[in-house]
Each structure stands twice: as structure tokens, then as C-alpha cells.
């Protein structure tokens, strides 16, 4: 069985936000819900900005699964962590349990209010996001099942991300894997999303995620 993950070479990330919007149009998430996030971190001494793209880490040991009182969150045999929208009651325990801050509860508010663009009414289930339910990145499982890569990986103009089967020695994701690090590894979550950080920036990124995982600065 495959074990899917994403590796980022953050040296190539330019903060262009393509992954963020590509995800929006692929998955139609609700306003304020960003499955893909890109944080900008400043480091004056290095005269650079570090751009940090992240989303659900699809942990091998996901704390959200244990936290859910309805058993609505489950890990598939291929390692993808999903939220069952039927079982989810919107308690929000998973939001609190996730150390990465990548789960949101869908708001009532919707895009396209006051207009009726074609297609939204008949969109496929994975693009529907009932209000009050927990919501996080599905690793574009609907695409993976068609043999495709997640939308964020495919559309990235700088080729920051590599998608693949972590257990397959021939997968391109294995090339840089030995150089990559997991975010907040000390939490024991064993994320399948990993990073090649620009020099001396991993701690800074971790601190920012712990302090404020939101994209917009207050």
C-alpha cells in the first residue's frame, strides 16, 4: 500500500500564492477556510523572507483522530487522513488538538453570494462544505484516485513541492527526503509532509506556526 506525502523545498518557494488559489478553485472551500496556507516570515539579519507553504500534514499518528468524540476522522490505508462529513458534528475538538492549526470549522458565509454561477449547484461532493462541519485538506484524494497529483503540487510555478509514495524507493519524493525535516517533530505526530528549510529557519517557522497559524497578520 502506498503512503502518500509531500516534500517541500522551501528554498524555491516565492510566496506567489498559486497553491492557495489553486486549492480554492479545486475544492471550493468556504470564505476564511484556507486548506493551503503560505506564511511569510521575515528575518532581517539574513536579508530574506522565508515563505512557508503548509496544509494538513496527514500525520501517521494524527492527534485529531483521537480527539474527535464522534470518531468522524479516520486514516485510510494509504495514510490520507479524512473527515467524514456525515459523522462530524462540529464540536471543534480536532481544531484544538491539531498542533499545526490546519483544521477549521466551516462558517455559514459562502462565496458567490447574490449570484448563481454555473456549476456550483451540481458540484461534486468533495467540493461541498456544509457549514458547521470541520474541514481540512484531503490531499486531493479525488485526484490521487485518478492517478493525478494534488492541485497545489501540479500548479506550483516554482516547483516547490514533490508528491509521491514515501515507501516507494523509486518515487521522486525520495530524492530529497533524507535532507528534509518534519515540522514540530517533537509532538510525535509523524507528519507525511516534510520540508527542506532554508538555512537556520526551521525553528523560526515552528515558532510562528505555534504562535499564529493564520495567513493574515492581525
Amino acid at each position, binding site marked *: 500500500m502506498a503512503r502518500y506525502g509531500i516534500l517541500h523545498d522551501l528554498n524555491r518557494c516565492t510566496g506567489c500564492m498559486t497553491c492557495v488559489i489553486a486549492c480554492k478553485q479545486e475544492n471550493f472551500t468556504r470564505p476564511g477556510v484556507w486548506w493551503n496556507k503560505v506564511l511569510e516570515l521575515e528575518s532581517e539579519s539574513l536579508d530574506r523572507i522565508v515563505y512557508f507553504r503548509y496544509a494538513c500534514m496527514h500525520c501517521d499518528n494524527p492527534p485529531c483522530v483521537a480527539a474527535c468524540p464522534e470518531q468522524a476522522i479516520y486514516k485510510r490505508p494509504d495514510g490520507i487522513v479524512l473527515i467524514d462529513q456525515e459523522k462530524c458534528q462540529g464540536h471543534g475538538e480536532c481544531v484544538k488538538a491539531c498542533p499545526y492549526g490546519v483544521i477549521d470549522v466551516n462558517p455559514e458565509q459562502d462565496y458567490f453570494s447574490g449570484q448563481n454561477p454555473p456549476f456550483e449547484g451540481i458540484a*461534486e461532493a468533495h467540493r461541498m462544505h456544509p457549514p458547521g462541519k470541520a474541514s481540512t485538506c484531503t490531499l486531493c484524494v479525488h485526484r490521487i484516485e485518478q492517478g493525478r497529483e494534488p492541485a497545489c503540487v501540479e500548479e506550483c510555478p516554482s516547483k516547490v513541492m514533490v508528491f509521491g509514495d514515501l515507501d516507494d524507493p523509486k518515487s521522486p519524493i525520495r530524492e530529497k527526503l533524507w535532507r528534509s525535516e518534519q515540522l514540530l517533530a517533537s509532538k510525535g505526530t509523524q507528519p507525511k509532509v516534510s520540508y527542506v528549510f532554508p538555512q537556520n529557519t526551521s525553528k523560526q517557522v515552528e515558532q510562528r506556526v505555534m504562535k499564529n497559524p493564520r495567513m493574515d497578520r492581525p
Partner: protein
Amino acid sequence: MRKNARLTHLDANRTPAGKVPVEERDVEIRQTICAICNPFSHCGVDAHVKDGAIIKVEGTKSHPHSEGTLCAKGAASREYIYHKERLRTPLLRKGERGSDEFEPISWDEALDRIEDRLQKIKRESGPESVAFYVGYTKWMRPFVKRLAHSFGSPNYCTESSTCYTATKVANLLNYGYFGPPNLAKSKCLLVWSKNPFYSDTSAVRRLLDARERGLKIIEVGPLITPLTAHADIHLRIRPGTSGALAHGMAHVIIEEELFDVDFVENWTLGFEEYRAYVEGFSPAVTEEITGVPAELIEQAARFYATTKPAALMTSASPTVHHTNGVQNHRALTALIGLTGNFDREGGNYVVPPGWLYVENGLITRQSQYEQSRPWPEMAPRITEQKYPVWSRFIPETQAMELPFQIQNPDPYPIRAVVAFGMNYRMWPGSDFFYESMKKLDFMVNMDLFMTDTCRLADIVLPACTSFERSELKFYTEDYVVWTTPVIRPLWESRSDADIIFDLAKRIAPEDDLMQKGYEANVDWILEPTGLKVEKLKKYPAGYAVKNIEKPPYQKYEKSGFPTPSGKMEFASTIMEEANYDPLPTFQEPKLSPRSTPEVAKDFPLILTTGARLPMYIHSRTFRLSWTRGLRPDPMLDINPKDAGERGISQGDWVALSTPRNSIKVKANLTEVVPPGVINIFHGYSEPEVNTLFEPDYLDPVSGFPGFKSLLCEVKKTEVEKRLL
């Protein structure tokens, strides 16, 4: 619908095998291009079409330019195409100019009314009193220029009156022709105030790949950009001092004899005067002017001059959005010739113009096509006298003069404007232009959306997006596309081309070629290439042209430079004739801490505007909730040091003031700007950034506004209720 929403199919254990999701049925993938941004980028797009509607867009993998990638703007295309504020029918103004009172009319009525009014004005005061204007996008420009001239008006102007053309003028003054960096073969790239990551997103992976291969990068510019992390040296100049920095580098290169002696001796004019002039820009003096440490200036100069081949990458605006813009840009591009990197492999390589700013070696008849009537057969352009050098090189009218020329009898009044995608907020002192446009006798604007500029028009016409029309597009990768509409134009919108050729029947009936219609005109333009629209239609995703003959390097060795002297001109013959400084002399910006210290007492900070954000290109994606959600509020960037001194915290509302006006925005505390500099994105309707500038805060050679160096002050303020 939402009530029944389920994510059950995501559960592999519960989904019946073989179930085909609804969405995937009857979906056809049709190719087109995204045309939201500038002509160099335009990514190939796979439009997923179901029941006549686009349900998704993805990058076209086989497209040689974008190779399947998009940017944040292109990925938001669906919101752009199906936006509820799209114009649906032609509209006729009922209320006062600027009001919202319009009523729908038919296309026939709209075009008849336009014909009547324009012909009447032509009879009364001559065709020259009608100005034609093209903003964004740029694809219809050649057709509009021809329409203007065939109607009889010399006053065709474009958004390029604030973009790109000043750099072109500077380059042509120095060299007579010019070329972009030959990145694939270059060993050192001097990037002068450009952020390709946000302005040419689809091509940046090549820059990153080149960097991984060992390309050296020197970055010049006041802001920290995504490039800075990849730059070996970053020269953080004070805005408006590019010219001084270039002279400082030239000083080092000449003093240390690192210049190309052979090229300078044989192929340049005015080197001795230039040498004597830059003598005054020692690293210490240059540090004092630019704020860049002398040591770094020396390092960068040696690095650029000795790492061969080296290429210079500039942008369309940042170096020329200053009141000293053309001379700034002349100064920095002089470094190319000085170091012997002009028209060399891996340097800056000259390829003749092709079609719509894209050069790939294919020669078209674009410029002959556009100039349907020679200049002497029309009245002089309104800006020929004021901007003689710019007018000599740019076959347009300088649009920055429109606000002053409307109803002004000297030399003749502009009474009507026929505009395609005009945004009056692009002008410095935009409120002044707004008031001035109210005095027009007649105005037409075409756009996708009901903008504030449309509200000034008598007749508003609904255009359509690149997904709904056909257009010709060149790519530098020897690729040509004639796009096929992937959906029908929405509502009653029409392609600008259809509008232009319908207008040609009415207002330019003597232009026989235009009477033959759009495709026949494109065929005429393409004639030297041997390509035809009929043939290109067979390749909706694009056609790879084989065996394009690329011009050789160092063409000047055979035919000289196309300048008056036949040489690269450090001292410009044309500038001298027009009574400007022939050398690329450095002047402080009109308002700066050094040129106007008395103003700087009250306005001690330097304001620079218009640097790109990744999700916006000017105001074009403001109204899309996906992109707007990434930065909902207008914000100014202020260094934490300056903010601290003023008691300003992240997210505070502040008043940003210049001697002309004051606007209220939120503060974003960031090291992206150096201390002493304020940076703000432009184009917002509220607050209106360009009201901070005087309408005549312009470069005397090009007429370009000084958007990137002004004096300002920032103070914490209480926000007015209406802004909350």
C-alpha cells in the same frame, strides 16, 4: 443542494466500485490562454467545460512557456469570468457623469450613437479632437491604433504612457535597439528593481533552475523581494537613485580598468565626457546619495564587470517611475555596453520586435498595420512638442497629458475619448483627471466590469475575457497561438475585436483592409511569417514554429548601431538636439530629502508605490473574493523602526500624507521596506493612492509619473466610520 452534500465518496471503503462522479461526466477540456496579466506571461490554460460552463481551469502541460503552471491570478479565472459585476449589455448614461444611472441599449443603438457623435465632433473640430485609448489588456492595441488613424486622429494613447515605454526610449537613446537578458547562457544576472516572481510567475522556475546551476545574482532595489534570498549581493538603494548607483558602479569599473576597452574605443560615442562625469561618483559619494555601503558598490561593480557573460534584467517601470526616470534608466543600461555585454551570448541579446511586445524572431507587419495614415497627414499629436524625444520613439500620444488637454484650445481641444479598459486611477492626481473627464463632450469605455471609469462614460460596452474570444499570441519559445473561444461570450458581451471592426465600418469606411474583418487583418499582419489564421485554427493549444531564423550576436559589427552616430551613445545626439543633457546625468527626484529638505522636514519618509503583490495585477483581481481574501484591506508597509518612533502597531489605521493629500490605510510592519521608506500597493478605489501625487509630477523626457519616489509622513489615526 448543500443539504445533501456528502463527502462519502472520499471513503474508499464505502464507495461502490466503479461509481463515476457526476462532475467527471461530459467534461470537455479546451485550450486557451489566460490574459489577466502582461503579454510576456499569458499561461496556457486547460478549461474544463461542462454544459457550456467552465467548471475548472488548469495549466496546459504541453504549453512550452508555462508548462502546466498557473499563478494565483490565473487560478482564480473562474471568479473573474463569472463575476456578478460583469457588464451584461451595452449601457447608455441617463444621469450625471460619474453617477450610476444607466439604461441597457442594444448593440446597434450603441454603435449608431457612437458613430453619430464621433462624426459630428469630427465635422466640428476635426478628427484629432477624439482621443483613442487602450488600457488593459493589451491584445487589441494594434487594431485600435489603426482605427484611430483611419478615423483621422493622431491621438492614440495607451496605459504604456506610464509603463515600459520610458525604458524603451532610454534604451533606444543609448543603443538604437535593445534586448532582454539571454538567461540560458548567462553567468551573472544583474536584476535592477524587478520582482519576476510576481510579475512573470510562469517563467520563474527557469530562474530558480539557473540559480541552482550556479548563476550569480546581483539585486538592486529598496525592497526585499523573493529574489533577495537568491541574490549574492543586494544593493538596497534609496528610491529614485538608480542613476547615481549606476554611475558609482561605472566609476569603479572605469577606475579599475574593468571595462571592455575594445568595445568602448570602437563602438561608443562620448566616452570621455561620460568618464569625466562619473569621476564625480566615487563609492563614498555614491554611498551618500544612494544609501548603499561603498564596499557593496565596489563589490557589485567588480562582480558584474568580471563575471562574463553578464546580463542586465530590468522591469517595465520601477527605474522610470521617477521624475528623473529616463536618465536613470540610460545610466544603468550604459553599464551593458561599458562591460561589453551588449548583444552578446549570455548578455543582453537583441531580437527584432515580433507581435505585441513578444520577440521570438518572427517578423510581422504590426507597425505598418498600425500606422494606416502617415503622421504628416494628421494633425500633430497633442504631446509632440512637450515630449519630443518620447514622441520620436513611441508612435503614440503621451496619455499623462489628457487631463490637461481636455477642452484646452491650445493647440486644440480633446473633446471625446474612445477607451478600451481605461482606469482613470492610473493617473497621478487621479482626482484631477476624474474632474477633467467630466468636461468631455463624449466618452465611450469598454470593460468587463462596471468600473468608476465606466461611470464617467456616455456609452459603456461589455467586453469579454480571453476565454470567450479569439486572439493571436506569440511566445518566446517559438510558439504561436490563435485561441479558440472555449465558451460563448457571456450575456451580450463581445470580443473587443468585434467591437473594433464594427466601429471601423461606421467611422473608418475608407479603410478597405479593416472592412475585410478581424481574421483577414490578422492574416495581413502575419504575412511575412507565412502563417495564416486558418492554419493556426487547427492547433488550438498552439503551434510550434520550426526553423525560425535567430539573428546573430553582435549585429553592430556588421551594420553599426541604429543611432544617429552609428555607435552606442554615452552622450546622446538626440537628447542634445532636444536640449536635454546628452549624458545620462543624475538628478534628484523633484521631491526628496536632498532636493527639497524644507519639504522633508514635514514629510521625512520616502513614498514608493506600485510594487507587485502576488495576487493582484494593478486593480484587475481586486473584486475576486479568492484573491482579495489574501489581503482584504489596503495596507502600507512601514519598517518597525519608523513605526515604533510613531507609536504605530501592526494593523493600526494610519494617515499617509504627502504635500498634496492624505489617505487612511492600515499599517503593515515589515522589514521588507528599509527604514525611511513607505511602500504601498496602488489602484484601490478607497483609499485612492494616486491622489497623493500632483498631476504634473512627471519626468520631463518621458512624461512618466514619479510614482516611486515622493516625500510623505505617516501618523496614527482614528478610522472614520465609513471605512469600518
